[in-house]
């Protein structure tokens, strides 16, 4: 089958939907920069200029003769790409694959058209584009952008999903639970034209909205209830988790949300809540291992804060520049340490919540002693002191926060990322390519703080934050961002499938007061969101990856939500919001592979049936539900989860005692709440799980199974049916 493979790869790699004709206008950002960035910039880019050639800079590329505008044939770039001599041809084999004929053709056409360079689209602040005008103008601007693009490719939106699918979809996306049969009936029986909008408003007002949206944010925050590394001791930072839930429920504007998390401690008369918010950057792992160098790991945490900030707000991969100038993006090592400098002067205290000031003082004293004991490598003393802190923390709730030092630490470029090798001194500052107008590296009275950073991130002149944020929100509702590389908006990132829509949404989000609820309502009320997810042959042929959204995508639910839907169906769900982590049953063997035998005081009573997001997270030995269903690993910021599909998932849903318990409860619920007859019960069970009626074939198959199980054991037959339903693909999928 080698031919097939090559053809497929060829088809896939072109990426572009419509073939480019020679006359078509080449767009540098869309068509050319990805090729140059992928194949050339590593050696002829911002960081390295082999043979004094720099291709990311038009002037220098022309001076060097690599590009002769209007004359592709005379351009050395093209000559070297087509060079007959293997040794002379670019790129050299060790640097990467040769360019395809299609890519070379694009480069030729681009040079012939004048070789225009445009600034990288993502580094230019978004302007609100005009909404495309269509003969039948859609109400929702999102649809205008989507439909216009579909039409260009000879496609159209799919019909709307049926009402049962729709209410299940939007309920799962907004609150992460199943709608109750009553809620489904209310919706189905509501003839009002705004029946759907009413459902959306109800969901946005639900306290569970905050939970569902917070869990996405906690992925970015690398939230966990333990310290990580080898000892992985417990920590108390759940008040931060609850702060995020509350912020979403209150629809806290995203600029304020940013400000409080990055710099809440620096706000004048900071409230307790604003201090708790700084827990965002206390979610870094913390090494308690004996014999560690405290400074080394403080530096690692600061690096983590730098990288996380770059990834979450700027959609940039800062980590490369920790050791050297970025190979692809205009992000120098100095830029990196300027950003790092914002976080380099933080102390890391524990804040009692509702405790007394002397308790805070006591904890602080103990922490100072721990630091001293670590310095001299006194393990036993360290352990003793840690136990003492835990004892105090056990008495009062507390959380981890940031606090700026009175005298800032000096920050130096770390040569090759080694904190022992100091380079040039730098001051806090924004990346030059994004904020060219800022000051220099001379220490001045006007030293920038984390407050300035937060304000710059959400300022209208910042080209990235709004785009990166709306893109991640889009990803929640369609499974893929408008920019598919949600964590890379740099040169190596993918070009937006709908650049105008992205910008329109970014500006809309900012100008409507950074409201997540308004943004979410806008998205879920669009026809694009509401359309059916059923596979279409024409879409599969013209747009195989469905990037143009001629249909919705079926998405497997996240780990925690799988637990939540099973709890919903079983009727066992305890809807309590917030509080310390809980311990639903898990096999004792989970800890066999860690150094420490952590306590797992299995929750009894109502805490056993809390939502998945409240399960206590031991970083190094997470609950198997999370590891099996692609939960965030809580080591580093996670901007998108995988959605894998594995045999271990099958084993977990089919056999895990927790899910078996849920299935048994669901079986009981079917018999007690469903109608008297089998067919009615099956229909009831289907409505609970899928909000819809079974087809005749489905009802028949399930009935056959019921009869077989009845013969084996009439008492457990409905529980067995329940177990089958809860193992179906549709059960753990948002259609």
């Amino acid at each position, binding site marked *: 089958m080698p031919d097939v493979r090559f053809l497929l790869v060829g088809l896939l790699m072109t990426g572009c939907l419509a073939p480019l004709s020679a006359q078509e206008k080449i767009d540098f950002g869309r068509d050319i920069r990805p090729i140059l960035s992928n194949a050339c910039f590593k050696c002829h880019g911002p960081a390295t200029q082999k043979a004094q050639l720099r291709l990311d800079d038009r002037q220098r590329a022309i001076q060097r003769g690599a590009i002769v505008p209007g004359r592709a044939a005379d351009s050395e770039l093209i000559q070297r790409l087509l060079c007959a001599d293997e040794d002379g041809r670019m790129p050299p084999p060790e640097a990467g694959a040769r360019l395809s004929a299609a890519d070379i053709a694009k480069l030729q056409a681009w040079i012939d058209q004048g070789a225009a360079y445009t600034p990288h689209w993502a580094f230019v602040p978004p302007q609100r584009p005009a909404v495309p005008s269509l003969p039948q103008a859609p109400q929702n601007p999102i649809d205008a952008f989507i439909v216009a693009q579909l039409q260009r490719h000879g496609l159209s939106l799919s019909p709307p999903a049926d009402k049962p699918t729709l209410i299940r979809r939007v309920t799962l996306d907004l609150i992460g639970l199943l709608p109750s049969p009553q809620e489904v009936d209310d919706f189905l029986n509501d003839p009002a034209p705004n029946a759907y909008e009413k459902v959306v408003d109800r969901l946005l007002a639900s306290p569970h909205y905050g939970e569902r949206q917070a869990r996405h944010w906690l992925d970015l925050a690398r939230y966990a209830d333990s310290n990580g590394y080898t000892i992985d001791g417990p920590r108390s930072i759940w008040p931060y988790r609850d702060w995020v839930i509350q912020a979403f429920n209150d629809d806290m504007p995203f600029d304020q949300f940013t400000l409080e998390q990055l710099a809440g401690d620096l706000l004048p008369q900071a409230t307790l809540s604003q201090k708790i918010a700084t827990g965002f950057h206390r979610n870094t792992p913390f090494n308690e291992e004996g014999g560690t160098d405290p400074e080394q790991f403080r530096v690692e945490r600061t690096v983590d804060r730098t990288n996380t900030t770059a990834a979450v707000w700027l959609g940039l991969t800062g980590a490369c520049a920790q050791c050297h100038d970025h190979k692809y993006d205009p992000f120098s090592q100095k830029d990196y340490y300027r950003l790092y400098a914002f976080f380099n002067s933080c102390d890391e205290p524990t804040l009692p919540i509702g405790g007394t000031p002397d308790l805070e003082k006591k904890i602080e004293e103990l922490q100072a002693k721990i630091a001293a004991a670590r310095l001299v*490598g006194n393990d036993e003393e360290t352990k003793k002191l840690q136990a003492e802190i835990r004892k105090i923390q056990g008495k009062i709730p507390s959380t981890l926060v940031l606090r700026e030092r009175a005298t800032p630490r000096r920050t130096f470029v770390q040569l090759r990322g080694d904190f022992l090798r100091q380079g040039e001194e730098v001051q806090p500052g924004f990346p030059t390519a994004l904020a060219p107008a800022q000051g220099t590296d001379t220490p001045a009275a006007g030293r920038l703080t984390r407050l300035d950073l937060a304000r710059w991130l959400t300022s209208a002149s910042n080209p990235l934050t709004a785009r990166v944020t709306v893109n991640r929100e889009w990803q929640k509702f369609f499974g893929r961002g408008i920019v598919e590389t949600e964590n890379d908006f740099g040169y190596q990132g993918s070009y937006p499938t709908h650049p105008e829509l992205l910008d329109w949404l970014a500006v809309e989000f900012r100008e409507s007061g950074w409201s997540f609820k308004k943004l979410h309502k806008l998205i879920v009320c669009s026809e694009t969101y509401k359309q059916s997810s*059923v596979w279409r042959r024409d879409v599969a042929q013209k747009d195989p990856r469905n990037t143009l959204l001629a249909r919705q995508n079926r998405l497997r639910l996240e780990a925690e939500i799988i637990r939540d839907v099973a709890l919903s169906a079983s009727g066992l769900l305890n809807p309590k919001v917030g509080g310390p982590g809980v311990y639903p049953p898990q096999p004792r*063997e*989970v800890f066999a592979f860690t150094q420490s035998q952590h306590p797992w005081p299995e929750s009894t009573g109502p805490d056993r049936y809390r939502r998945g997001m409240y399960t206590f997270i031991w970083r190094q030995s997470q609950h198997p539900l999370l*590891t099996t*269903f692609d939960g965030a690993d809580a080591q580093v910021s996670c901007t998108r989860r995988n959605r894998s599909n594995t*045999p271990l998932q099958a084993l977990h849903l*089919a056999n895990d005692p927790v899910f078996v318990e849920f299935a048994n409860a669901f079986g009981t619920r079917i018999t007690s709440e469903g109608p008297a007859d089998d067919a009615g019960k099956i229909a009831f069970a289907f409505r609970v799980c899928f909000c819809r009626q079974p087809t005749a074939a489905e009802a028949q*198959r399930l009935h056959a199974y019921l009869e077989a199980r009845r013969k084996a054991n009439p008492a457990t037959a409905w529980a067995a049916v329940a177990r089958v339903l809860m193992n179906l693909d549709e059960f753990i999928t948002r259609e």
Partner: protein
Amino acid sequence: MTPHEWDDLITLHHTRRHFFRDCAVGVGTMALSTLLARDSAAQQRTEPLARDTAAQQRTDPLAPKKPHFPAKAKAVIFLFMAGGPTHLDLFDPKPKLNELHGQKVPESFTRGKRFAFIKGDAKLLGSPRKFEKVGQCGMDISDLLPFHKQIADEVCWLRGMRTDVFNHGPAKCFVNTGSPQFGRPSMGAWLTYGLGSESDSLPGFVVLQSGPRGPRGGAALYSAGFLPSVYQGVPFLKGPQPILDLAPPKGVSLEDQGEFVEAVRDLNKLRHDVTGDPEIQTRIAAYEMAYRMQTSAPELMDFSQETRETLELYGVEPGKPSFAANCLLARRLVQRGVRFVQLYHTNWDHHGGPTENLEQHLPQVCKEVDQPSAALVKDLKRLGLLASTIVIWGGEFGRTPMGEVRESTGRDHHIDAYTMWLAGGGFKPGYIHGRTDEIGYNVVEGEVHVHDLQATILHQMGLDHTKLTFRFQGRDYRLTDVHGRVVHDILT
């Protein structure tokens, strides 16, 4: 192939989510098998669950994939000595060190170095162990490892190992993932991602554990990182049910379970007819493989098929969890097509002190692993499996020539020189590679950095370490980061 089938092949293929991320390797094979599975699934709707699938096309992401070039080895067994074994008391005798015992280490050795626990002025500690030169190769082996003496000429000895990080967690992470920071895929995940697994009824990457506690670092050590989670290591549990949730629920027989899986399959197919989502096909395949795991695991775990002589070779006591039992299990896993088996044995962290000193605890842990490690090599060889299986023995770093002064003696973590060994899989047997200085502090010849070892192991598995990549955050990541070179000197 008709044009219609051709369409299907392409469209089916394209509609798989995250296509680029999930299957950068073996593209054509997978598409075809997906198509075949769809066709055969349609025909088999009313047939009972397939029990024997050897002849069927694999549709799962663990289906075997072609390497970059012909492979010398097919499987890896990594005997991970967690904590950092002392090369100076086991494999690398230093008369000069004994001579300088009790003296301060010359400053020329320690300038600019950092240690976990000891200070720069620590005193040298000679080794009380007796060494013997064994085999044709004349390898020096400590009296603590008598069984190792029997395999001296089967083993490729690396005396010039070097690593970058000196705390346990980051160092273990480094050996496994090529990075000291948690969150990257481990070697087993990379290998199953690149090569799939020969087994269709067991996970491709299995992790076994013995000793008093689990390895520091936990699940991150066998994580799939940013690779799809199907490639993550599956930790086997102690006891007859090795995989979490493998046994059907209480009161459900294996036959009942078969009926359950059939019902789930049929209803999933009905939904597939409506939605057309190929992901449902993958889920059906996942349930079928899960079911095969349930039926094949008891056979895997049943040591009664092994002869008494084999059990004695390893030193396995039936019913008792041990490193020996894990070595035998590793051989059985490899026999059944598992790609990567990693055994963690704790604890090798001999700093000195009441629970981890060189006087009592080093001999004890040596006794636990010596016979089974040697037995594994011998057993694989007599079964004809050694040539295609790489056995790796070693930890995250070595230990210092300087002693730690506690109530008993010990040594600190040492990253500049230590010993590991490999056997089988095209590594030179009876070959000693690398040499350290006269106190065993630095490598003077034949240095093998952790990234070099990783590159070489991938090479023997038929993979180019610079080409086995995964795009994440706009960059192609690989096991060896931007480092690593294949050490051809140690290959046959």
